[in-house]
């Protein structure tokens, strides 16, 4: 007790140094990240656009930017809504196979009964795509699936498609390949995270279940899955946040390089690509409004997941 007070006294004595150590971080954060975020909010209420090459600022507007984000002139779904839809579709078709395969691999690679040789080399190989520049990977896949691409040719030779432009003229294959690239780049990462999760489970729980005669499937459903919930939540939320900002792969895969918009017919334009398009065309107000909505969607989804999963944890504890 006595030593504790002495220690505490000492740290307080030096406490003011703490401010000096954390000052650079907070100054830079406030200036270069927090202020831009607030400024984006402010800009989303400013009527700024470019007309005949000149920037025009018509001042404060409460609804103009947001209205144009939600409703298109002709009454159809607005571009912003469409890009949110595109992003969601591409993310879901990447995430579901990713989490399933990663779970399977995490169980396999930590299985003490069926030991796999070369697990280390396997991890290194499946993680490789995650390290490589996404821009290069996107163009690599476009070169393979574009017109005259080697894989387009291969699929044509097999007689599955009869059109050289099949993968880039149709929405579903374009989105499908973007989803696949995302899946291919990220499942190694997810597998490594889940493996560390499985290894964190107390082995005596598995031993006890072995004595009780549990099958592998029972162990997976009743032990591994519930124990992995925190790390799966982490994977889900980080993947969701990352997925909503998806840019590199779709922005170079099947796009009109002059406008930066996804083809065919904007089917592969994601939210961040749309923000860039609005910014480059001088529509700063609308670009800011889309950014604010992207921020709010990101925030709401992550809070929802944490609250939902936290609640379930509490309930489970009460039961126990």
């Amino acid at each position: 007790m006595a030593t504790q007070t002495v220690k505490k006294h000492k740290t307080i004595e030096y406490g003011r140094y703490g401010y000096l150590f954390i000052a650079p971080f907070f100054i830079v954060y406030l200036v270069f990240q927090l202020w831009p975020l607030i400024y984006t909010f402010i800009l989303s209420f400013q009527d700024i656009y470019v007309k005949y090459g000149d920037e025009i600022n018509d001042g404060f507007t409460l609804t103009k930017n947001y209205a144009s984000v939600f409703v298109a002139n002709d009454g159809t779904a607005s571009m912003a809504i469409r890009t949110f839809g595109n992003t969601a579709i591409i993310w879901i078709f990447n995430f579901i196979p990713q989490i399933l395969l990663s779970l399977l691999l995490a169980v396999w690679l930590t299985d003490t009964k069926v030991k796999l040789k070369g697990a280390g080399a396997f991890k290194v190989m499946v993680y490789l795509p995650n390290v490589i520049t996404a821009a290069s990977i996107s163009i690599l896949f476009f070169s393979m699936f574009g017109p005259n691409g080697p894989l387009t040719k291969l699929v044509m030779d097999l007689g599955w498609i009869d059109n050289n432009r099949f993968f880039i003229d149709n929405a579903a294959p374009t989105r499908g390949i973007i989803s696949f690239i995302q899946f291919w780049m990220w499942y190694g990462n997810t597998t490594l995270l889940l493996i560390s999760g499985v290894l964190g489970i107390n082995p005596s729980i598995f031993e006890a279940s072995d004595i009780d005669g549990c099958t592998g499937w029972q162990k997976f459903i009743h032990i591994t899955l519930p124990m992995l919930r925190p790390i799966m939540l982490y994977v889900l939320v980080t993947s969701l946040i990352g997925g909503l900002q998806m840019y590199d792969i779709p922005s170079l895969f099947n796009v009109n390089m002059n406008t930066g918009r996804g083809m065919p017919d904007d089917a592969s334009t994601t939210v961040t690509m749309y923000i860039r398009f609005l910014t480059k065309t001088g529509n700063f107000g609308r670009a800011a409004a889309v950014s604010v909505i992207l921020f709010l969607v990101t925030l709401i989804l992550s809070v929802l997941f944490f609250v939902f999963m936290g609640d379930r944890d509490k309930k489970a504890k009460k039961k126990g």
Partner: protein
Amino acid sequence: MSNDKISVSTATRMEDASYSRKILAAKIFRITICVILCIISLFPFYLMIINATRYTKDIETGISFIPSGFFIQNWNTLMEKSAGLGTSLWGAILNSAIITFPGTILTLYFSTMTAYGFFAYNFKGRKFLWAFIMAVMMVPGQVTIVGFLRFMQTLGLYDNFLALIIPAIAAPTVVFFMRQYMTGAFSLEIVEAARIDGANEFRIFNTIALPLMKPAIATQAIFAFIASWNNLFTPNMLLASPDKATLPMFVQQMRTEQFTIDYGAIYIGLFITILPLIIVYLFLSKYIVAGVALGGVKD
């Protein structure tokens, strides 16, 4: 009696045999799947390397698994075509290095410093400020880009590398990781001993705390470097001059009309841009793979 024993042991042996056969079957099945996944991971890169050596007209006729002899010719085409881009391949590598090296160093130094400030000192508002860092950790940079861009225009930092370097000082996730590492591997008693010896606080940080944090700094250095080197979105928004293109922006040019007809040059361009990362990965993969798991256990 003895008969019974024999029959029991044969039964277990038979069970054993079928059990180990099951294990073997599972093993073969799992290894097959894993090998297929490895092939899928490496195949695009293999195809890229092969095609970098093939004649463009040959590439268009179909897939091949054998290298050909057009590497030099494709290389010359790439150099010719990229000459008109404003930034040469080497210029783009240089630009990327000018942004990435200082940025990574700033991220690591100031993140360690911030984490140390929270770890070694007790000051008013410490808990609140730490909660702030935790809260903003998940805010993606993309949502602030419009405000950031306009702000940089006001400051006169638009189209300036500094706009990409200075913000690296504030990296909440790295701060978080560093503090976690400190909690596990760092004892304040060393700091107190140094104080008794009369060292000032910043000297203690630079000469004692920083070296002790080397393993964590090394891991984070790899990830910070790769993230910055591969970044396309931010430089794409903030840089405008043709001669300021970073490597990913140079790669982007290979999707433009100048290149679309020349697959040989595209593949070799991709090969050259990917090669340094593959080499780095070959040497550091052990640390990278271990680091992914470390960074993930955040709760």
